[in-house]
């Protein structure tokens, strides 16, 4: 397929407005990592306020101006701004771009033996739409009144009456959703149409399955929120009342609006997106972990087919659980029964996937390199995240736990030491493919161990605070309330853990940049892996493969009895 005759592209077309899936994948990854870091910084500021409410922020407190932090003391509006933007940025500009846009673009075409994505220009458009969304979100901090401050959920009517940062948030979201929609169409078509000869669906690596199902979630779940975003924009700019009921009185003034809308409509539209979104965050992570575990146990995944069926079922079910976020909005028994039943059902395929990954360890010859450490840590951390979802998914215990720190602890276990650890595993694992060099193992371990400890130092106490009844999104961490007093001091330990976690990222940052120049040079297949991406040169040239790959076997043929090596690549004949 590579005829060796390419027009040489200039710098801009080659590295900036590129249509090459690898360049776009790296653009996505770097954007995602940068926003993860930025979102993390927002959280570190919040953690000061939670640990030391209403005390001046040391050293940098003067930088935020009198509108946000007079005398260095954080105002509640500033806290809410940080909270809303931390959530939005981590989900929509951090994890999704890295997990789907980054790894999906970089790895999926290689793993299926394609020369590029099916629609390279659509791919470029998708990245630049994300970029505009990111610029809009980032720029909104400089608006009068600051960025959005009504939570990442932007519940109406609070969001409808919020300052102009909310308008920017909505416009930013429309760009981000558009980006995901364009990307999802591309992933679906690419996976169906461009698989190498011999690569049947049940020879696809689990990572490709995870990305494939994720693409359907993006395609089907995002349009409702895009619509909802436009409706809220109309409410704010054109005085419509989609989410505004009659008779609102704000600060003593009766609102002059047509009324007749429903605040709960927003929540339904939002969660119809945002629950599948949870699986958009977790499925690619499971895919990465599966690849790394198969490679480093030197044996096939246990229950590959059961995992594939589970991930498809998970994708389907994720569309009918959304209202378990809304049990206490006044739900009757019939609705509550439906949504808690579907929620219990969706836990089963998650349990099957996690069990399959755990059982895959049995009989292995386990190598503890940095990607494997992150992938292994994913299992118990995601386990805690999944298990703590149980009492929240059941309506009765949710009465006590809803909107408390228990929820925050739960989903952070899923997304932070869960998904983000898996993403780190992916960075360490595929870095050699993208750059031709390996990252340092020493720095990698220096990154892993403190990160694991500090992550738990932040999130485990949240579960205890939540059981104590402490509400989320309190600008003083609950200091107002007596019942929260007993668990208040935990906030200091959590905050110090958060700042420790920041220090633990320094080895990663050094490693990431230093290894570009100083990392050990490696060949095509440094991990002795079986899947197709390792049949391409490192880094792959334009068009990816020097000869068109043909697939003869399943994805994880490690330690095949009688085979010459302990890995048999998918391209090996016979």
């Amino acid at each position, binding site marked *: 397929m590579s005829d060796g005759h390419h027009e040489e592209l200039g710098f801009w077309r080659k590295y900036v407005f590129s249509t090459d899936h690898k360049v776009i994948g790296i653009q996505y990854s770097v954007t995602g990592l940068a926003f993860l870091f930025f979102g993390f910084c927002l959280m570190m500021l919040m953690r000061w306020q939670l640990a030391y409410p209403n005390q001046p922020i040391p050293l940098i407190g003067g930088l935020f101006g009198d509108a946000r932090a007079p005398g260095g003391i954080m105002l*509640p509006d500033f806290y809410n701004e940080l909270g809303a933007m931390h959530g939005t940025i981590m989900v929509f500009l951090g994890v999704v771009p890295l997990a789907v846009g980054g790894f999906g673009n970089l790895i999926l075409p290689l793993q299926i033996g394609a020369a590029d994505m099916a629609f390279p220009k659509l791919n470029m458009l998708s990245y630049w739409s994300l970029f505009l969304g990111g610029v809009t979100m980032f720029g909104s901090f400089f608006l009068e009144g600051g960025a959005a401050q009504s939570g990442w959920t932007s519940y109406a009517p609070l969001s409808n009456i919020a300052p102009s940062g909310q308008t920017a948030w909505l416009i930013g979201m429309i760009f981000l959703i558009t980006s995901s929609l364009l990307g999802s169409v591309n992933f679906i078509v690419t996976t169906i149409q461009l698989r190498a000869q011999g690569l049947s669906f049940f020879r696809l690596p689990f990572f490709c399955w995870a990305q494939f199902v994720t693409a359907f979630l993006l395609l089907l779940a995002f349009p409702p929120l895009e619509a909802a975003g436009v409706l809220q924009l109309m409410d704010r700019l054109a005085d419509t009342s989609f989410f505004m009921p009659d008779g609102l009185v704000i600060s003593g003034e009766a609102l002059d609006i047509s009324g007749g809308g429903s605040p709960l409509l927003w929540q339904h539209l939002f969660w119809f997106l945002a629950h599948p979104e949870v699986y958009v965050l977790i499925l690619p992570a499971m895919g990465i972990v599966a690849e790394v575990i198969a490679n480093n146990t030197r044996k096939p995944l*246990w229950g590959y087919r059961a995992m594939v069926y589970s991930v498809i079922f998970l994708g389907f079910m994720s569309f009918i659980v959304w209202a378990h976020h809304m049990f*206490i909005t006044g739900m009757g028994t019939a609705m509550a029964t439906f949504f808690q039943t579907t929620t219990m059902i969706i836990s089963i395929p998650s*349990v099957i996937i996690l*069990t399959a990954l755990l059982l895959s360890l049995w009989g292995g010859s386990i190598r503890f390199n940095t990607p494997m450490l992150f992938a292994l840590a994913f299992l118990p951390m995601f386990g805690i995240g999944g*298990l703590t979802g149980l009492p929240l998914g059941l309506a009765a215990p949710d009465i006590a736990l809803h909107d408390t720190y228990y929820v925050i602890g739960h989903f952070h276990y899923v997304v932070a030491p869960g998904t983000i650890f898996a993403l780190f595993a992916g960075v360490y694992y595929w870095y050699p493919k993208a750059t031709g060099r390996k990252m340092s193992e020493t720095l990698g371990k220096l990154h892993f161990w403190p990160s694991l400890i500090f992550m738990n130092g932040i999130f485990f106490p949240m579960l205890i605070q939540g059981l104590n*009844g402490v509400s989320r999104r309190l600008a003083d961490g609950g200091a107002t*309330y007596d019942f929260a007093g007993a668990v208040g001091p935990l906030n200091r330990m959590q905050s110090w853990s958060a700042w420790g976690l920041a220090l633990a990222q320094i080895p990663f940052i050094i490693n990431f940049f230093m290894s570009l120049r100083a990392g050990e040079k490696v060949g095509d297949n440094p991990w002795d892996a079986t899947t197709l991406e390792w049949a391409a040169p490192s880094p792959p040239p334009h068009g990816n493969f020097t000869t068109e790959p043909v697939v003869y076997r399943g994805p994880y043929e490690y330690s095949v009895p009688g085979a010459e090596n302990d890995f048999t690549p998918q391209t090996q004949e016979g």
Partner: protein
Amino acid sequence: MMDLFFPPGASAHAAGIDRMVDWVHVLMLILFIGWGAYFIYAVARFRQGKNPKANYKGAKGSASKYAEIGVAVAEVILLVGFSIPLWADRVDEFPAESDSVVVRVVAQQFAWNIWYPGADGVFGNADPSLVDEETNPIGLDRSDEAAKDDITTINQLHLPVDKPAIIHLTSKDVIHSFNLPNMRIKQDAVPGLSIPMWFVPTKTTAEMREELKSKPRYADTADEFVYEIACAQLCGNSHYSMRGFLTVHTPEEYQAWLDEEASYLGGGEEEDFWN
């Protein structure tokens, strides 16, 4: 088990919710410890140094299948045996209004307006156009006959012990959430909707103070204990301080409190007269 963490319960249904949270956590602990022990054992036993050659076939046997079925069965029990009945009890089994104290709560940025129907037991009319933040935050129409004896307070909910309380919850502006941690009550206050909920407080504030003196964790502050109302849904910049109070009285004290409030009402009207 979770008593260790939960705020002390003080309503008739609190024990049921707490027991359910206990059972879910027992299941979670069993699973986590089981998986965790297996995980540590597997990682140690099958490390490359100890097991240089991997086994292509891997795990055999059907223990995992039984574990998965076990999880499914446990979830069905939790769902059908506990969660659905507890929920139905909360939203379908309302006591008769005649046997209950009926109160309306109107949330606003950033306070809880508590509204009693007064001696006639009938809530008067209210209109958003009559709202005055200083004197009439819920826009009560005092010219309405039924409204004349209505009692309103800000952030002070008073209830008699052992009698069902039915609360009709709404909001003037944005969504709030009415959270009584000790009562295991949490309900969103949604503008445009009036959502009913109910509970039976089982310990007066005074009884609770006595009880807490015997608990080391609370003993120091037991004398100042109050039932707190917290906002659980982000509602704006002072969400963190939207704090209300519930006082649970003996029936006699409750009547005395109502009478006292009613007498202020008369006083207010006289002042209007002289103005």
